[in-house]
């Protein structure tokens, strides 16, 4: 376990250095697993693999570009008003918090005596006043920095769809004969697990979006679908993403209905309900519970990830830990197999003997003797 944590931290540290490649790579892998059934279906109908891949990627690209072109004017208008919009939502949130503290102070006078409301007000006012100046520019620049690397996603997806079998063959070729059959089997199982994970994740996102959008629509919060989708995508980041999604929706509700804090509280309740649905109904139906990571280890990994690789570590800590655990298990199964190890040693000995010039031809050994006692 300690080794797994150490490897995870090293991987996170490395990922932080190449984060602009890691994120498009992960997105491409997810899209690859979602599009592969479509390509397979086309191939099954007699379409050549190359044509099936090109057609699938082209259709998805055209749809994505179409959506982008339709939403771009709206996004640009919003972006121009970003500073005002951010201020509006933050003051909405501040208003809600103030009202909540008032209720709490009325219920518990000790809080009033401690001037809790005033202190919180001061802190938040200082933060919200300076927010646009301090952070907004950085956030916009960060988003712009990500744009070119996101253009890699369709290219990587196309490459994976086109050449994943060849890539797998290339990787398998480097594995010694002794470990080959077992490695190939475990490789295939890993591929199956990743496929069901990514396909499940997309299905889970769809279910979350539908539930959240329906709930927000019923509460009168708009745009319900966009908020539901954004929150569902944010929840890909374990724990932290869900919290950010929840805060985002509550801020929107609090700003749009400043005189009805009950709507913001209802949004909070909706979020909790969807989380419960996620944990007990949707998750077992879609992704399953294949990666059993102890909650304590999850929290530990958050801290370690954040320390080693900052924000990247925080976001990628659990997914990387999951992958390292699975791959570690596979490598351990292959390398720790005594029979396979002894077979590998015997094969190396044979190769060395063969490469030495002038070595007389060896008789074929009794194969059963090479087994480890």
């Amino acid at each position, binding site marked *: 376990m300690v080794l797994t944590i150490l490897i995870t931290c090293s991987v996170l540290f490395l990922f932080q250095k190449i984060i602009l490649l890691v994120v498009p790579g992960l997105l491409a892998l997810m899209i690859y697993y979602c599009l592969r059934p479509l390509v*397979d279906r086309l*191939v*099954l109908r007699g379409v050549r693999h190359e044509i099936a891949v090109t057609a699938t990627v082209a259709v998805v690209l055209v749809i994505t570009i179409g959506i982008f072109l339709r939403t771009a004017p709206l996004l640009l208008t919003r972006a121009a008003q970003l500073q005002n919009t951010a201020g509006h939502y933050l003051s909405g949130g501040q208003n809600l918090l103030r009202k909540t503290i008032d209720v709490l102070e009325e219920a518990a006078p000790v809080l009033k005596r401690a001037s809790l409301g005033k202190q919180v007000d001061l802190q938040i006012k200082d933060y919200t006043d300076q927010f646009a100046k301090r952070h907004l520019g950085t956030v916009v620049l960060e988003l712009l920095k990500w744009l070119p690397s996101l253009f890699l996603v369709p290219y990587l997806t196309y490459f994976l769809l086109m050449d994943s*079998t*060849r890539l797998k*063959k290339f990787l*398998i*070729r480097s594995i010694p*004969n*002794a470990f*080959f*059959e*077992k490695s*190939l*089997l475990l490789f*295939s199982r890993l591929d199956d697990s990743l496929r069901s994970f990514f396909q499940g994740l997309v299905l889970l996102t769809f279910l979350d979006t539908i539930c959240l959008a329906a709930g927000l629509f019923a509460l009168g919060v708009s745009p319900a679908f966009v908020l539901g989708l954004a929150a569902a995508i944010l929840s890909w980041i374990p724990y932290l993403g869900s919290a950010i999604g929840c805060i985002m929706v509550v801020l929107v509700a609090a700003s749009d209905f400043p005189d009805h804090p009950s709507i913001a509280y209802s949004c909070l309740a909706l979020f909790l309900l969807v989380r419960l649905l996620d944990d007990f109904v949707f998750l077992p139906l879609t992704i399953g519970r294949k990666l059993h990571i102890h909650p304590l280890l999850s929290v530990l990994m958050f801290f370690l990830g954040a320390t080693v690789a900052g924000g990247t570590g925080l976001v990628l800590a659990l997914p990387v830990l999951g992958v390292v655990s699975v791959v570690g298990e596979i490598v351990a199964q292959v390398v720790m197999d005594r*029979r396979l190890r002894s*077979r590998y040693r*015997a*094969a190396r000995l*044979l*190769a060395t003997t*063969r490469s030495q010039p002038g070595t007389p031809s*060896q008789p*074929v*050994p*009794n*194969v*059963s003797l*090479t*087994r480890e006692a």
Partner: protein
Amino acid sequence: MNLFSTLANREKVEKLRNLDVFRDLTFKETLEVDELLHERVYEKGEIVFEEGDMGHGIFVVVSGKVRVDPSQELLKSTVLEFGPGEMLGELSLFEEAPRFATVAAVERTVMVALLRAEFSSLLTKNTKIGVKILVRLSSTMSRRVRNLLLGQRITPSL
């Protein structure tokens, strides 16, 4: 570049179609199967698989020769060497069961391996190819079982 790749493909396809199990496949089908095959080279004396190993797929000898070392009395009377075109481990294409015998290379041997999981995906994606391979496999297996029952010295199914 295209010319060279076509020539290389032609050579590869011819090599594969010389193997009994892929004999019925067309040029295009053979290329598709080739995507799933893993070529392995075994040095003289190197073990291909051992008795008791879980079988996950078949091996077909492309060139060279391998020797079978079964512990079961019934199999000891059978031919102990497999040459080019012969397949080994075909039973494991249908069920995950331990290998019946140990197989090692008698000389430098080139083999191609087809894993059960990949064969299953081929059966789903391209039934026509799958059926052609299955027919060849079945005919080899039935010939071996018949010969075994008749007590003839012929390669067994592993």
